[in-house]
């Protein structure tokens, strides 16, 4: 199989797998009180899963709009770093291409583009992964939002249990041994959870999620190699 075929296959495969998360997002958005259109606009315009889940998670917990926006933006900052890494590879010429490429700068497209064996395949991986995920993510968001509306009591309890599980599934890969500095990631994660639970009784809903960002301090100073690079 050629490297090009392998890149295409991996990109489409990842896109289909990620599409499944869209069902969970659509259901979570419905549970938080968003209608189908609002869920779809988030998937089509925001198009960055963790921020979307955070926004509906905070709103679902009764949080204010500001807390919801704050948590979504905090989680969106990593896409800025991805953009910096992708800029030399994509080298988008002209304003239109840059504006278009920026919309698809997310975890998965960055991982696929950076892992590709050369620059041309890197670009191919970025665009194919982006397109597959974009279509799948938006379709499954609608499915999830429509499917979740009009559920009865027991089904609603099931959905309530699905939402935290979806967040855990998003978090999980960052805590595994294959992730760089997994031990530090775990420390920060435990810190974030503890801060959020301690603050829950005393701050307005949603604020504890944004405030949990202070747990990043547990990561400590940058490693020496990073400082040098």
């Amino acid at each position: 199989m050629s490297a090009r075929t392998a890149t295409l296959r991996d990109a489409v495969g990842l896109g289909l797998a990620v599409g499944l998360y869209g069902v969970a997002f659509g259901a979570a958005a419905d549970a938080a009180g968003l209608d189908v259109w609002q869920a779809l606009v988030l998937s089509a315009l925001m198009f960055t899963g963790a921020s979307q889940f955070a926004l509906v998670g905070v709103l679902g917990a009764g949080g204010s709009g500001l807390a919801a926006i704050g948590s979504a933006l905090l989680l969106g900052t990593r896409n800025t770093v991805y953009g910096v890494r992708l800029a030399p590879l994509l080298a988008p010429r002209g304003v239109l291409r840059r504006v278009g490429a920026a919309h698809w700068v997310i975890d998965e497209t960055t991982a696929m583009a950076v892992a590709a064996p050369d620059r041309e395949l890197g670009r191919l991986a970025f665009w194919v992964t982006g397109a597959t995920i974009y279509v799948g993510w938006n379709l499954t968001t609608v499915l999830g939002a429509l499917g979740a509306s009009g559920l009865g009591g027991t089904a609603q309890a099931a959905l309530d249990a699905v939402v935290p599980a979806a967040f855990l599934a998003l978090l999980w890969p960052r805590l595994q041994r294959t992730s760089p500095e997994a031990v530090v990631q775990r420390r920060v994660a435990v810190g974030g959870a503890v801060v959020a639970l301690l603050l829950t009784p005393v701050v307005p809903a949603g604020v504890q999620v944004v405030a949990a960002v202070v747990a990043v301090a547990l990561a400590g100073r940058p490693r020496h190699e990073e400082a040098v690079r």
Partner: protein
Amino acid sequence: MIGGSLWTVVLVAAVGCYLLKLAGLSVPAAWVEHPWVTRVVEFVPAALLAALVAVQAATSGPDLVVDGRLAGLAVAALALAVRAPFIVVLVLAGATGALVHALAG
């Protein structure tokens, strides 16, 4: 939250997240690749996602509560530990939550 302001939240957050992406492709790399900036950005998702897991699973308004969601979360963690696919993790968590709800009446 009333409908109009909910749309405002949706649109403001969506545009803000898009501008964060665009900034990465547009600003000089040196602005973003400061060691402290990359250090913080690398660990923000762990802190926030863990906070969301905790809040979604164990709180209700200002109260800490234990119910089917926490049981579902425990089952989800077990499923993730044995590398179950995402959809299986969610179905098991949902089934657990529904079961606890049915048993607790």
